[in-house]
């Protein structure tokens, strides 16, 4: 299959609200192997600042792998070989130039299954700031409150901050995980199917939350839910068998895709 570069707007693009968006992530010729299995093939893709980029595609096509490459979590889980370049704000993140701890402070991650730590709600949110050296109690209090407010969870938990995070519902736990990310003031949040384990009401809350925080943070979200991608994302990338088939404005992808495969997938003709 031929790799198609469809990021016509890059590096600067005019978007519907008439502001200039520039790419925060640029990926060129990215290949990734798990042992001998070639999981990502020659990926060319940009992620624009302060936009929501949705990544869609059938199971096993490499969406999670790509997302985890962006904060180099992929190296923790398995032995991988990577070639090509991924730059974050102009710096190549694949070499040793940027410590992964610094990268991950700027690029948070929300997982498919909510994974709060076995600690109190407060300690969960304060974990990131503490890890990065903030000890001042008043400062931590402020960060915790602020992050929980941004994650639209404050009102529900303000009376039980020092109770276990495991006492929260699944949807609340996922918003706590988003608050935990926000507490380190990231520039990007990567979300891997963040609502696939949640009920419709919780899903709705998280979608609203994403729309609210996208003015401050860039979001890349993997989702199996086409409507979700259409509802919340500015741009959409379609992955298939480790390749990127098409990456364009979400409205274009959903109404007038350039590739027949994209059209087929979106309309449920395969996948």
């Amino acid at each position, binding site marked *: 299959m031929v790799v198609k570069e469809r990021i016509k707007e890059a590096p600067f693009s005019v978007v519907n609200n008439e502001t200039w968006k520039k790419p925060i992530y640029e990926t060129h010729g990215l290949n990734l192997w798990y042992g001998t299995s070639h999981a990502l093939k020659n990926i060319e893709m940009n992620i624009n600042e302060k936009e929501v980029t949705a990544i869609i595609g059938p199971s096993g096509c490499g969406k999670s792998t790509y997302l985890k490459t962006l904060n180099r*979590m992929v190296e923790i*889980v398995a032995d991988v070989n990577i070639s090509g370049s991924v730059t974050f704000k102009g710096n190549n993140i694949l070499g040793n130039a940027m410590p992964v*701890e*610094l990268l991950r402070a700027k690029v*948070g991650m929300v*997982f498919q299954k909510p994974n709060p*730590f*076995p*600690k109190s709600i407060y300690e969960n949110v304060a974990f990131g700031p503490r890890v990065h050296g903030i000890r001042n109690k008043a400062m931590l209090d402020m960060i915790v409150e602020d992050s929980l407010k941004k994650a639209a969870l404050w009102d529900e938990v303000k009376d039980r901050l020092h109770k276990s995070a495991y006492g929260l519902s699944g949807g609340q736990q996922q918003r706590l995980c988003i608050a935990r990310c926000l507490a*380190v003031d990231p520039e990007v949040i990567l979300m891997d199917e963040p609502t696939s384990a949640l009920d419709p009401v919780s899903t709705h809350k998280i979608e609203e939350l994403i729309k609210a925080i996208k003015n401050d943070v860039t979001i890349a979200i993997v989702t199996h839910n086409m409507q979700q991608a259409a509802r919340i994302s500015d741009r959409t990338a379609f992955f298939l068998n480790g390749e990127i088939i098409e990456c364009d404005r979400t409205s274009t992808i959903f109404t007038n895709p350039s590739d027949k495969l994209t059209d087929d997938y979106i309309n449920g003709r395969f996948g």
Partner: protein
Amino acid sequence: MQLSNQTIMMKKMKYRIGANKFAKLLFMLSAFFGLGVLAVLFYQVFSQGIQFINWQFLTGKLSTQPERAGIMGAILGTFWLMLVVVPVTMFLGVGTAIFLEMYAKKGRLVGLIQTNIANLAGVPSIVYGILGLTVFVRLLDLGNVVLAGGLTMALLILPIVIVASQEAIRAIPSQMSEGSYGLGATKWQTIQRIILPAALPGILTGAILSLSRAIGETAPLVVIGIPALLIPFPGGILDRFTVLPMQIYYWTLDSSLVAEYANLASATIIVLLITLFVLNSSAIIIRNKFQKSY
């Protein structure tokens, strides 16, 4: 099969219900057999020894005259021994487990180490005694003091502590450490703040249980050479010492000469059992307390 045939079904039913009752009886008997033997043992020990436990016995020095003999020396010896065993096994045991689970790349070498640790757990304690005698008592020239005994005991229970700690660490879902790495924590921060707190109940339970084994163990100390009688109370880890189970051993050995020694041995067994009971209960309490907190 014709389920509708009532008489056949009733016949089978009788058999099934009978077998059901029999199975229950069988399992109850096997459970009560062990408990029964234990009860007899307790009864014997307590009836023989309980009237010999008094303040003088608990705090007195060792003596050849049964009515004046006390076990303070052995109690202190056990205490000093644990003071060596606990830090050494905790540090080496938890450290090894962390290395194997968190740092070492899974490969041949780690597999080999792993198999060896499992095998070491099965090595008879007297072999550790010979190791302790050769290395600590003779080679390092420590003599048969608390430090040499403690290091030997530490090696003896080390494999158990390693395996228990490894299992405790492995039981933590990988999403926990991924969440921590995802926030920019280093490996050491993740170990400190996520892995160890979550693994602590498991580690402590394993450590305390293996400690009770070390408290009751005699064979390695026999090999190292623990004096039978009349040494001053040990005041530190470089003094010669005796421990509770050694005292039981010597008194039982000599009970053919002085009949009352058998009673003293029983009394000491009671003290030892109570110590072990307290240790094991605290292991359970610690586990429950930590597990409840989240």
